[in-house]
């Protein structure tokens, strides 16, 4: 109880909690869940964009996309490392993903159907991710906050790249513009859902806010995202797939229509267009890579043995 109060005092004083510091079990659990979920999202998120690497329409775009997907893998690595400081292993976390026990961001259960989707993902999905992540750069757990600083820098680069793809399409041929509009139509609502359920229904928000794991509620972040994104879309000359979208001059906010939470829950429950395929792709990669990981371990053991043997011989001589 004294420890708990002191812990909360440190949090309130904006001190960073570090791996060897005492922390409440629930704080640890919440962080492991959140960080690993974030890591899994980066890994699964490689798949929809990876789908267009071999078909990118120019070498410049191909290089940018390949580098972007590689960055996502890198983010996954930092985040697994941050989670490991809390006393879980990467193997455990990966097993949770593959068994379906751990979640990843539902947005990646939607397919990438045209090249414009690569633009839309960068613009909207990375844009939404950044809104979520910028406050996390000041989150109370040190390793998580430091990982997020690095990640945010790269994500905002990706977001600009995505927007630039959209801009090019919108200034291109009528077919390209139609592709961009179709991508916005498909990705807009799922992007809004990325901020999670409305505050009135969010399970974890209050405690996470107290612990300064979160610093804004889902609805606050969602509104920030809409306010930032709608003017960008209008500049592109695109129409948002929301007849209720309008600017409220009194508050300075863009008001948007009702989100279809039924769809959100359905996709979360496994019934999105790609849930099955995403998990299968990860499982297949893991299963087909088993012999490689075993070989690496076997070789490392042999090398250690040889070194030990050589050391013995030297000692004996």
């Amino acid at each position, binding site marked *: 109880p004294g420890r708990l109060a002191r812990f909360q005092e440190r949090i309130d004083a904006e001190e960073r909690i570090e791996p060897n510091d005492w922390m409440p079990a629930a704080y640890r659990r919440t962080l492991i869940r959140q960080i690993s979920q974030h890591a899994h999202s980066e890994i699964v998120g490689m798949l929809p964009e990876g789908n267009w690497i*071999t078909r990118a329409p120019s070498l410049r775009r191909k290089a940018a996309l390949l580098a972007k997907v590689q960055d996502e893998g890198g983010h996954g690595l930092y985040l697994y490392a941050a989670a490991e400081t809390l006393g879980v292993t990467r193997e455990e976390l990966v097993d949770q993903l593959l068994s379906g026990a751990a979640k990843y961001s539902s947005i990646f259960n939607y397919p990438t159907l045209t*090249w414009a989707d690569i633009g839309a993902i960068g613009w909207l999905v990375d844009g939404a991710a950044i809104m979520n992540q910028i406050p996390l750069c000041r989150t109370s757990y040190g390793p998580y906050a430091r990982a997020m600083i690095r990640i945010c820098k790269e994500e905002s680069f990706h977001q600009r790249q995505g927007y630039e793809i959209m801009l090019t*399409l919108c200034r291109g041929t009528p077919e390209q513009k139609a592709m961009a509009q179709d991508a916005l139509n498909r990705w807009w609502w799922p992007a809004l859902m990325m901020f999670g359920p409305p505050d009135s229904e969010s399970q974890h928000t209050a405690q996470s806010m107290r612990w300064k794991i979160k610093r804004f509620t889902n609805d606050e972040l969602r509104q920030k995202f809409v306010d930032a994104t709608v003017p960008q879309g209008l500049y592109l000359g695109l129409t948002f797939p929301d007849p209720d979208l309008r600017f409220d001059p009194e508050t300075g906010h863009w008001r948007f229509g009702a989100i279809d939470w039924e769809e959100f829950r359905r996709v979360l429950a496994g019934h999105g267009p790609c849930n099955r395929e995403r998990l299968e792709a990860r499982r297949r990669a893991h299963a*087909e*890579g088993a012999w490689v990981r075993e*070989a690496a371990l*076997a*070789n490392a053991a042999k090398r250690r043995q040889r070194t030990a043997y050589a050391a013995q011989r030297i000692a004996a001589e």
Partner: protein
Amino acid sequence: MTTIAVAETPLTLGLLRLADTALVHSHRLSEWCGHAPMLEEDLALANIALDLLGQARALYTHAAAVEGAGRTEDDLAYRRDAPQFRNVLMAELPRGDFAFTILRGFLLAAHALPFWQATAGSRDATLAAIAAKAEKEAAYHVRHCGEWVIRLGDGTGESRRRMLEALDTLWPYTGELFEVDDADRAVIADGILPDPAVVRAPWDATIDRVFAEAGLDRPAEGWMQSGGRWGRHTEHLGHLLAVMQHLPRAYPDATW
């Protein structure tokens, strides 16, 4: 017209051979993205693919400048059909398993490293600059893939079996790396590209060193596959290009 015909001189041909090999190999590596045996390899294979893609872009841009017909790197990559591609056959073979990918990466890099080292002294200043950068990249590719050849060759029974199978498949494609035709002779004589003979000894040394550590026997120098450098490919390249070129072919008037 969505398919172009490049007027090949010994120099543009030499550049296309290098660029196409880099692009096609990069494509095969990029097929792993998100599907590698471990996250670290997702990153490493993407790294190598990015290096090769960068080399291809610089080489295409130079080839287009040399040709002087106002073409771009993308015209050369996206608007030639398979028989116009000049890559070595090894680069276009299907992705295969991780042993195959790693061994192919190693064999091509073991050649590329001394090749680019020698090319850094090219009388073509643009090419020399490309080579100076590519040399550093190739050194990393040799290291990374070489380490894995050793791990898999001297790992488990299964990894060794797969590595031997990959070696058996890939070795007949190594001969093409050292071929010399009239076009090659012309650019060698001009001091633009190196004589493959110069590359042979360091290649041998790299192969022998890594194979020794991996416990692999170097296959006898038997019959070698050939044809990619003059446009006679395997059946695989056409499928690769159909996918790669789909968008620019479907929307020839668009810029992206």
